């Protein structure tokens, strides 16, 4: 590279846009040409970093090392991810409408179920004493002999209407 070529690169060096190969050529010229170095440094002192020399070659084993890690599974294998926002952006309008309708229906159903549960027990349930055997699923104790402790307990529970619970 000649001095005139190097000096033409002044602006591109400072503002960017010169490819790395061109930059390396300018750098090697600047290392041996004090006149160009003085001109370019007066414009932009940071151009002086180019005289620091070449970077070493990329290590030959670097790509192999990365690929070996990927193939060995020592890093997390990429799995397809459910990308909701990406799906939304790429989907056509009918899919948006269907998703919105499903959401509205789901919310409405949930709201109605919530309202229904706030009403308390139905009319047939009010005032009926709870059966402790049914409530506690203690069918095996239904045949407790009269006078036994178990039978006395269930009698007492039925009288108080609390199911012994």
């Amino acid at each position, binding site marked *: 590279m000649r001095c005139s070529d190097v000096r033409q690169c002044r602006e591109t060096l400072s503002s960017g846009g010169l*490819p*790395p190969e061109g*930059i390396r050529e300018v750098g090697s010229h600047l290392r041996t040409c004090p006149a160009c170095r003085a001109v370019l440094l007066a414009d932009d002192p*940071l151009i002086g970093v180019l005289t620091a020399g070449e970077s070493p070659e990329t290590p030959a084993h*670097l790509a192999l090392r990365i690929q070996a*890690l990927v193939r060995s599974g020592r890093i997390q294998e*990429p799995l397809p991810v459910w990308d909701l926002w990406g799906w939304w952006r790429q989907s056509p309008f009918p899919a948006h409408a269907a998703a919105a309708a499903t959401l509205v229906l789901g919310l409405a159903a949930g709201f109605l179920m919530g309202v229904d549960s706030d009403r308390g027990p139905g009319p047939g349930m009010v005032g009926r004493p709870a059966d402790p055997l049914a409530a506690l699923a203690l069918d095996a104790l239904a045949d407790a002999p009269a006078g036994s402790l178990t039978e006395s307990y269930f009698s007492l529970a039925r009288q108080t209407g609390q199911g012994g619970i």
Partner: protein
Amino acid sequence: MSERDDEDLMRAAGKGDAAAFGEIVSRHQAWAWRVAWRFTGDAAEAEDLVQDAFLKVFEAAPRYRAIASFRTYLHRVVTRRCLDWHRKKRPLLSDRIPEPTDPAPQPDAAAQLRDRERRIRSALDELPADQRLAVVLRYYEGLDASTMATAMGRTPKAVERLLARARKALRPRLQTHLG
């Protein structure tokens, strides 16, 4: 057979195609290596940094969207890894560059070049990490303000301000060493 573009390879890598990802690594490792080496000043650290950056790219491949070029995306990943590395390790390049054993003037031209290189590295190392990274991307890789802004997550004006601060800081040292 036509060469597959980077975006196509990334889509394949996102589905677990290790060979496609290997092709991406082969294409872009030189750029990533140069930036990492210039930034850290240490070959072993640069290797780890580049490996880490590419593995991040592989892990993120299923979520990759070709909004911008893959090269722009890789710039961003590598610059982030550089800054993360700096935050964790706070390296001092000048610590790793051996001092000349003979403090007397060196007549040998090669020795003078080595000495100049050491001084420039030392001056660069004293810059804050974001300014140093901006210098590497602009002056060694030739990126323009817009590309640098995308890579560094800043505006083009902010990038130019970083470079202006770096110029101000380095002007006296570089002119002394190189004038």
